[in-house]
């Protein structure tokens, strides 16, 4: 989110669409995310000219071309670094980073980590499809063990990274999850935008060509309520139409699923979601799907001062009371004057 300096005007979805032909594969999950973003923008009170989409390289990174805003399609993995310079140079801009599991966690993992650690005010949308799409289907750092791909014909053997856990570990003050076709996605995006600081959103995205339906186990509409836990601040962590919930095993210090009888979630010990509880957030991002439902929505949200605000403040304080006279700077330190009679201090 950013402090608006321009007067917000009313926009509609159309105002956020470019005239560019969208070049994703037909049926790609990116279309749904694009629509969700374009639908969200008019509702968050920002303007197209004040908005910049910054991306790296990959399928997801074509995103800026399709948003009628300012956009910078940069190089592989480095979008966070461009965004940092951009935001430091103009803190009024509303910056959205679009990245993927390869771009943001493999080649650009370092920058993602530092952007989050510094808490630059921006939204980071990481489209996780667990595969390299644009390079034709190699396994990615989020691919599950055993993923067969052109580069892993016998199955991948390395353990996958968990984006939300990575972000929280890097010091994120906002972590959320959604998926491409979810109707809740705009609400997640709005919450991310409302958070002042680096807001990390993992968006599960269906790559229909190279990793089709890899998230169907939790994203399929049928029986979704049994497999998705949509977190809401201040509300109990219940799912499966209120028949199940998440509770804390206080002795083992981990989460567990419990049955909720007759809607009495309190009796079952179900936790009330507190978005500012960092300890619980650590457990939520680590919750293994299968044993647990997939935790979605805003997992954690507890703002801290932002990097660019602190930089601006320090720059101002350091410059306070000093005159920016370059000529006097040039002669700073020990100087001497040469006259016809020779040098003197």
């Amino acid at each position: 989110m950013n402090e608006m300096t321009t007067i917000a005007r009313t926009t509609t979805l159309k105002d956020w669409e470019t005239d560019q032909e969208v070049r994703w594969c037909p049926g790609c999950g990116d279309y749904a995310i694009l629509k969700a973003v374009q639908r969200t923008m008019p509702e968050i009170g920002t303007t197209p000219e004040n908005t910049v989409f910054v991306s790296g390289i990959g399928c997801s990174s074509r995103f800026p071309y399709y948003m009628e805003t300012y956009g910078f399609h940069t190089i592989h993995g480095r979008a966070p670094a461009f965004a940092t310079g951009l935001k430091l140079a103009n803190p009024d801009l509303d910056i959205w980073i679009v990245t993927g599991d390869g771009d943001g966690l493999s080649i650009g993992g370092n920058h993602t980590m530092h952007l989050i650690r510094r808490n630059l005010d921006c939204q980071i949308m990481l489209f996780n499809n667990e595969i390299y799409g644009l390079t034709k289907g190699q396994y990615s750092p989020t691919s599950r063990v055993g993923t067969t791909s052109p580069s892993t014909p016998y199955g991948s053997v390395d353990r996958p990274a968990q984006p939300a856990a990575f972000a929280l570990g890097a010091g994120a003050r906002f972590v959320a999850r959604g998926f491409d076709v979810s109707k809740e996605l705009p609400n997640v995006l709005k919450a991310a935008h409302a958070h002042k600081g680096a807001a990390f959103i993992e968006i599960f995205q269906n790559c229909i060509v190279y990793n089709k339906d890899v998230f169907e186990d939790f994203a399929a509409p049928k029986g979704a309520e049994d497999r998705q836990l949509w977190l809401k601040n201040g509300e109990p962590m219940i799912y499966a139409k209120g028949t199940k919930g998440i509770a804390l095993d206080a002795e083992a210090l981990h989460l567990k699923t419990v049955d909720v009888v007759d809607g009495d979630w309190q009796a079952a010990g179900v936790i009330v979601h507190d978005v500012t509880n960092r300890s619980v957030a650590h457990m939520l991002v680590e919750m293994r799907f299968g044993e647990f439902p997939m935790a979605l929505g805003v997992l954690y949200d507890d703002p801290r001062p932002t990097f660019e605000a602190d930089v601006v403040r320090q720059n101002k304080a350091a410059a306070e009371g000093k005159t920016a006279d370059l000529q006097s700077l040039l002669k700073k330190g020990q100087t001497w004057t040469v006259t016809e009679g020779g040098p003197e201090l």
Partner: protein
Amino acid sequence: MATAVVDQADKRQSPLSDAVVVRFAGDSGDGMQLTGGQFTLSSALAGNDFATFPDFPAEIRAPQGTLFGVSAFQINFGSSAIDTAGDAPDVLVAMNPAALKTNVPQLKQGGLIIADEGEFNDRNLAKAKYEANPLDDGSLAKWQLLKLNISQLTMDAVKPFGLGNKEALRCKNMWTLGLALWMFDRDRQPLIDWLNAKFAKAPDLAAANVAALNAGHAYGETAELAGPLKQHHVDPAPVAPGLYRTLTGAEGIALGLVAGAQLAKLPMFFGGYPITPASAILHHLSRLKEYDVTTFQAEDEIAAICSAIGASYAGSLGVTSSSGPGIALKGEAMGLAIMTELPLVIVNSQRGGPSTGLPTKTEQSDLYQAVYGRNGDAPMPVVAARSPGDAFECAIEAVRIAVQYMTPVMLLTDGYIANAAEPWAVPDLTTYEAFPVEFLTEAPEGGFKPYGRDENLKRPWVKPGTPGLLHRIGGIEKELDTGHINYAPENHQAMTDIRKDKIDGIKVPDQVVELGAEGGKLAVVGWGSTFGPIHQAVRRKRAEGLDVSHVHIRHIWPLPANLGELLKSYDKVIVPEMNTGQLKTVLRDQYLVDAKPVNKVSGQPFTIAEIEAAIEEALK
């Protein structure tokens, strides 16, 4: 170096007869760089022209007494124009056996060795791999030797101040400096003032250091009658009147960048990552917030340049800086800046390579990298500084080109320039022509074209936040005018041609002949920090009557329009470089001239004598 000195070039018979080269050498922890720096200041106050050469190891605190832990500082000062830090020292101050061993081979025959015999014990001799004590075995016979127990003399001098052994010995360098000040008839007061200011919070330390300084000075006075020690007065150099200061290359770059940003009327954003010998530029700029400078220490070299490009996109002057290995990491991002046509200054403080190479030693081996080192046809202007003072001018020039042509610009300097100091006549900023940037703020007649162009083939610079000019940029090939994605064959041909034509068309000043004449038997063509030794060597050879001229190229890319004709006006061209012949290759390629290489890659600057020998060889 010679920037501030009245050029009396060819009048002189023996240009260095009135100059002295002193080399202070000791252990990394002995404070030799500090001693050298203060001696430099005293040379400046004595009105001498000078050039310095700090030569230190890559290790921060190398094990004491070792050969690789030796840190040295050489200064050449004199009463006439000084262009280099000098070839062979006249005086070597050796604070331990290792310093003697690594530095004495360069000492002029008959030169003076001042050795701290207190440090020539069995342990230190073994560490320096001496089998016998060289102070006693006659192996130094071709030099004059003055052995003093500087350690003991210092301890005696600071005794009244009750310092511990270790602290007392730390004053050794001030004792040595005191002796050097006496030797060259220098005023002690500025150094005493400096010590009192430096140790304002520890008056005991200040007093002890001053006492050591005075004791060293007094020793010179009393010992004069006996040994080889003689007092030598070097007259002030004939220098143009004006205000002077000492300037290192890193300071020159930092100040020049700030001046350039002011002339362009832009805030500056500097993205850097620590690397030797470039970090000093980041350090200088990070203290200049009041000049609308934002500095950002990024997580790596790539993020440093990417953040700078991001800032340029936002409408600031983006600057990044590194040395060879870091520049290599930035290569892909430079390509993006070329593709998106955003202004950017990339400073490369070159060091010995490849790979980690010689972090603290100088080299000029990144010229290919600067001119050619990117994927695709990625032309980029390259400007090279010849000295600390010139670095100021070159930084301004790099900023000018970057914003006037919307292009990244590589500014080359090297480890020698970065660390070396020279007297600098403080320029009057009002004499510099401003080149204020005009951002596009509304659509021009005929509609807004993000990749439309002016007469310089420059595209418009639009700040995000500007209503009505929304557009997208990126590294994928752009369509002519619109900047949309376009892979069409004819479009890529046209865009590649435009990118090349834009850089080729950059207006750079015509090449001048530094010394000598247009046309003749031999041109010595240099670039960067070889300026000093080439200039002196050509001056000496011309004084001997040889037909030789010095051409020094600042604009490495694009090259000055008249350079080809100029080079062809000489019978022969030699190109001394601290690499294996990189500018030579470019000149041959561009002009089909038979440029002959003169190369040195030892991590040390050329000596004047080496260039003189090359001139003699070429004119045989």
